[in-house]
């Protein structure tokens, strides 16, 4: 079955990022297709490569990256939410005159239409957040 996942909450806040990750991983391991994981609101903070948690803590960002590399997952950050929170890729840096980028590998920044498309294209949309 084709699934889409939406994450509305930042990592290390409550548990939504962890729940979404474990759900997505379990779905992929069961052989389902995950069409897209869309990060909205504070959820875009899952996509900065500058995250540096203590060594004995889980690295939520790297965990998403590793899952995306293994299964070729489409990890999409909402552009308006990313701009507000300073998550920048090369295109956004150029467009907005920023001196750096911080987006993690395998993540991309795009519009809310990507969430709508994911909902239309997928059999189920599963939402995690506050």
């Amino acid at each position, binding site marked *: *079955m084709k*699934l889409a996942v939406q994450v*509305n909450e930042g990592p290390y806040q*409550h*548990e*939504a990022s962890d*729940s979404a990750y*474990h*759900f997505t*991983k*379990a*779905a992929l*391991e*069961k052989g*389902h297709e995950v069409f897209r994981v869309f990060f909205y609101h504070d959820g875009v903070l899952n996509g900065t490569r500058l995250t540096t948690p203590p060594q004995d803590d889980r690295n939520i960002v790297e965990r998403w990256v590793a899952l995306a590399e293994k299964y070729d997952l489409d990890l999409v950050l909402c552009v308006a939410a990313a701009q507000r929170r300073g998550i920048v890729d090369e295109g956004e840096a150029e467009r907005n005159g920023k001196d750096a980028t911080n987006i993690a590998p395998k993540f991309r920044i795009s519009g809310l239409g990507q969430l709508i498309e994911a909902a239309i294209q997928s059999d*189920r*949309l*599963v*939402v*995690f*957040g*506050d």
Partner: protein
Amino acid sequence: MADLYTVNKSPFEKNSLEDVIRFSGEGASILFIEDGVYGAMAGTAVSDLVANATGRKFYVLGPDLKARGIAEDRLIDGVELVDYAGFVDLVVENDKVQAWL
């Protein structure tokens, strides 16, 4: 076909459990995740809400229960334990999934 509702907040923090029981239809499945798992415990001020809700099936996510130190023998009778793979199965088996945030 039926709907799956997820409840991720403690019933002692938000009213989402009470709301989902009131608004869900017959045949609905309700899955407790994250702090929502406190709603699956027997002997609390809200456990009668779950125990008396007819026509609905209740599930609780085992890893989140364990993370909070709640033993399985403290669950309300009839609440079924699932792991993440079971969560995925519930999503597949139901027509729609609504997170009761």
